[in-house]
């Protein structure tokens, strides 16, 4: 092939050079040449996507912490409870989904620290699914690092609640109780919040007749942070995929 290729190239080049690029196009077609007309598009422009939320100063000095989150949904359909073990540092958030063979690791973006990416580790499938920022925004409703860090609670909600004199002290922090004026309205109705830890110790949210109650317990300093390491190095032999590619089942 190496010997033949240059010869073929010379021959082909000769053909190319000899053929006027447009010389064999019918004159009529050249005369009637018109570029396509750009149509008026009637689809609406997509709405602007808001910037990822900025973070309070306390987000830069948070101590490593591990705790259990127990969430209970109560409504007409009955009652359901889940439990997660959460380990958090200033730039990593690890969720161990109890009762499943899955875990999440969220990473704070070191360049734009409002942003987040993540890995969903599926031990059953031996897969690590990489999630980009927009995957997390669209599929997990995480607008940025703040939503991961604060367990999807937006502290701006506190402005709409009444601060009470009740408080609780745990893990060296004070959690102050906030309540809604109308405890039966949709939205957050009771929050025990710490400005120092940026966590809701207890959170009650009402959604379409369902009361969602989240409670943090067993707050402690983690003995080890091995789960915060890049899972692609920690779990050798696992298939690594972008989540978009995982949907193309065969490949």
């Amino acid at each position: 092939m190496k010997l033949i290729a240059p010869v073929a190239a010379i021959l082909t080049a000769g053909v190319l050079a000899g053929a006027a690029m447009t010389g064999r196009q019918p004159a009529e077609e050249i005369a009637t040449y018109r570029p396509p007309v750009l149509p008026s598009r009637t689809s609406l422009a997509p709405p602007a996507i808001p910037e990822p939320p900025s973070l309070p100063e306390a987000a830069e000095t948070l101590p490593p912490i591990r705790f259990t989150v127990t969430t209970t949904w109560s409504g007409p359909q009955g009652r359901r409870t889940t439990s997660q073990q959460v380990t958090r540092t200033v730039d990593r958030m690890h969720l161990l989904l109890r009762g499943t063979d899955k875990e999440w690791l969220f990473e704070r973006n070191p360049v734009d620290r409002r942003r987040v990416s993540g890995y969903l580790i599926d031990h059953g499938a031996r897969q690590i699914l990489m999630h980009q920022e927009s995957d997390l925004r669209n599929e997990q409703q995480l607008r940025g690092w703040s939503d991961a860090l604060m367990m999807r609670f937006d502290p701006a909600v506190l402005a709409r609640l009444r601060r009470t004199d009740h408080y609780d002290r745990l893990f060296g922090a004070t959690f102050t109780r906030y309540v809604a004026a109308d405890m039966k309205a949709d939205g957050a109705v009771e929050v025990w919040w710490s400005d120092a830890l940026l966590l809701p110790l207890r959170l009650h949210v009402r959604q379409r007749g369902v009361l969602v109650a989240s409670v943090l317990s067993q707050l402690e300093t983690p003995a080890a942070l091995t789960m915060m390491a890049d899972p692609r190095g920690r779990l050798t032999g696992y298939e690594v995929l972008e989540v978009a590619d995982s949907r193309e089942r065969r490949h």
Partner: protein
Amino acid sequence: MRQANHKVLISLAATVAIGAAGAAVMARGPSDRQDDHEGSSGRRAKNVILFIGDGMGVSTVTATRVYSVGVAGQLIVDQFPYTALSRTYSSDSITPDSAPTMTAMMTGYNTNAGVLGLDETTEFVDFNKDGDGKRLWTLLEQAKREDMRVGVISTARITHATPAATFAHINDRNNENAIALQALPGDATYNRRLGDGIDLLFGGGRQFFVPTTTTDDEGGSGSRTDGRDLRAEFQGKGYSYVYNTAGFNSLTKKSLPVLGLFERGHMEYEYDRPSDAGGEPSVTDMTLKAIELLGAGHRKGSRGGPDRGYFLMVESGRIDHAHHEGNAFRALNDTQELDRAIGAAARAVDLRDTLIIVSADHSHVFNIAGYPMRPLNELPYPVPSYDPAYATLAGNGILDVAYDINLATGNVEPSTDGNGVPYTTLVYGNGPGYRGAARVDPRMDNFPGRGGVIPTGPDHPAYFQESAVPLGSETHSAEEVAIYAIGPGSDLVRGTVKNTHIYRVMAKALGFNPGS
């Protein structure tokens, strides 16, 4: 299990066939050969641009037309004078993936699922352990050999199957660390057919150019396990490297060769693009920039000589991903953006010397159902009455429930299923949008969409169109896709052809001998 010498026999047979016929059609049987229509206008194009909508089946184009310009409007591709239907089956599958289909379009040869740039005696990951088959010549390699400038653009990762099929030869489309090296001049595995290298690469997939231990330009980590930073190595070979819109906008003809990696993974959907950290160019932006850079002159260090034109491949890679998610909204938005890019290209080039071909690698189980009426202001007759929502149809009617006239009352109202429940115009044959017997009026449906969001209706960006079969991911389909063409040599695009015909049209337009 194949015998070890099977491939030798195949190669010999192919060589004899090529010598005897003077054409490089390596077909398996009569039915394959019938798919390729011969013919020549004898014309020559100076430049060729191939646009691929990944997963852009005919129903996707139709739905996008309604969404974008109305059912009677004209997309850019509708204005192209030559069209054909392209059969997409691969050597081993009725319904293909992108690797063999793009290989077919780039080489003129069919091959197997998951295989890039190697002939059909090659199995995915060589599971028969009998070695790989013949390395096929791609049109991009042939163009490079003729001293044309070449460019590859994708909104997916630049090492993903479709763009990789223009320059890589590998039995595993998922081995993207290796695919990236095949484009790096000077590497031990470099594809030497690329000469001094691909002149322009725009896309996502930075992770396969960055080590796992390194934070990239936008704060993501790499995926290279060999510790190599290919961004630096490409720059060491003379490439200009950019990763955001600021760098992109600064590119000039003097910047060639260029490596633009705008995202750690796939680039964003067009709808989500404004949210990117560093800013991403659209597929239209990238196409126009590529035409500007490749369109004249020579890259630094080249041997000069006459302007021999360029070959450019542009892929809108995420139409496919949106369909897999069962989310028509993003599929239509990305298809619309691809049509914009095609229009921008068609107006930027001289169509008397530039052939533009548009096609898809495969279709999806995506359909337009019922007998939806056109919007109220498009009807050729007055209607006695209509449901108020009919006056404000979403997406010109395509992203809404189907409305039809009740002939008994003259009222235009939602069409209903056997249980009296309305249904949407767009549906999937399978996928995550399965509601089963519990289906309700889509306008009041609490079925969770993307991210568990409860959509406000079928036009909501999170909405999953309903599917008939419950699957976590919607699938490709085997039906034909369209080919649209304009410019010198486009008259060969006609009839129902195998997708290998696309290669042959481009090769003839450029005066290349197929397959060599």
